């Protein structure tokens, strides 16, 4: 496993697993050289937060990928990154988000959970701002989406 400041990179299958904090030491733009067959796949489930310098580097990575005609796929995008994708349009680049975490809460037992949504399987519903139904892993009751769909899914809009 490689460490850059507070960020870790680990190659697994066709993806690079990114974990920790994306900050001034991340040098994300260099990851473009690790694309395989014209694709750069980033698994972002382990990202804890991204600061302003990390955002700047993320945007440079997206620009470098576009320039090199490399398709970027973002998998299991963690909530802190979803918030940045929603807040800062430039972070989206031309990347395709195939899955991402989203907040759910159980009305029955009060549990809050970040659950993975497959953006391809649920594409039609997400386009209508309809979160997929989820079941509470603790009590089995239906969980409610714990944010405004219009706000949380805005990064998926073209």
């Amino acid at each position: 496993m490689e460490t850059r400041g507070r960020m870790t990179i680990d190659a697994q299958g066709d993806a690079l697993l990114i974990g920790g904090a994306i900050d001034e030491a991340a040098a994300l733009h260099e990851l473009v050289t690790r694309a395989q067959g014209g694709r750069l796949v980033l698994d972002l489930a382990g990202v804890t937060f991204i600061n302003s310098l990390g955002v700047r580097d993320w945007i440079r990575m997206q620009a470098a990928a576009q320039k090199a005609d490399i398709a970027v796929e973002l998998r299991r995008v963690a909530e802190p990154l979803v918030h940045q994708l929603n807040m800062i349009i430039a972070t989206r680049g031309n990347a395709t988000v195939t899955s991402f975490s989203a907040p759910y809460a159980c009305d029955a037992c009060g549990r809050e959970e970040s659950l993975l949504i497959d953006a391809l399987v649920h594409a039609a519903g997400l386009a209508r701002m309809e979160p997929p139904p989820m079941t509470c892993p603790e009590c089995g009751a239906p969980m409610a989406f714990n944010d405004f769909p219009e706000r949380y899914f805005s990064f998926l809009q073209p």
Partner: protein
Amino acid sequence: METRVSSILIVHPDRKTQRIVQRILGVTGYTVDIADDLEQGTRLIAHLQPVLVVVDGSAVLSPRIDEFFAAAKARGAEACMTLLGGAAVDQVPKILGMGAVTNLLVHPMPVLAEELTITAQKLIRNDVFGAEKYLLWGTDLSSITLTRASQRADLVAQISEQVRARGQSARVASMAMLVADELLSNAVHNAPVDARGEHYRRELPRDQELELDDRHQVRLRWGCDARYLAIEVTDPFGSLDRDTILRALAKNDVREHGSGAGMGVALAYRSCDHLVFNLAPGKRTEIIALIDVRHPPTERLAASSYNVFVERS
């Protein structure tokens, strides 16, 4: 001979809001006067000596606002607060774009009562510093002093761990990390100025180690009272000024491009529910970020309050 008494003037078109704000601010002991619009407010102000004026967000966007602010200032008003009902949060970018509003309170009741009372008391008493003012009695604030720049990473990680250990959600912990990281980074690298006002550490790489002597040490305090998680960062330079803050808060290119000076402050503002700047020019800058831990995301506005307080000498 006419005796004029210091008062608070409210300019708001909605009768119910007028009454709510009047009740909240009445506890300060000041007379509270009310106007329905800027025209009436400007007429009234000629006969008043308001210490504070409280203005509705829609009035702030009126072309008459400059005339009103000038009249209020001439009559001795120390500051102006702008209120924005929850239904008008889409007006926030316009108000920020004016670059003139130093106190914007966006939340509806009951949070409005807390924000309004604290803001009014700080302004009237000229006692602006300290996160304690935003937290319930008995709330413990942890305090740490940065003596090396590289401590930032550890401190941010510690806050996250402790916030989670105290039962807060991963979302709150993540917001706390981002806010603390940005405020600490600004205090270490942007705050230091030399005698000519040059920010001599601004261009240094943020991952470069720096020993922070007494003059450069940064204080971090944080605590949670089950309403707010408060993160307070203080530097001993006091170099941050009102106009720089208002420019950073108004940054439109954060949304479009995510770059440029002031990005850290802009991101911190958009990642908390209330951002407070306490300034003692040339002496110290204290920034307090408040993250609401009471309400789930579905009950939180897509906008945040802010205050810029400048200590009167």
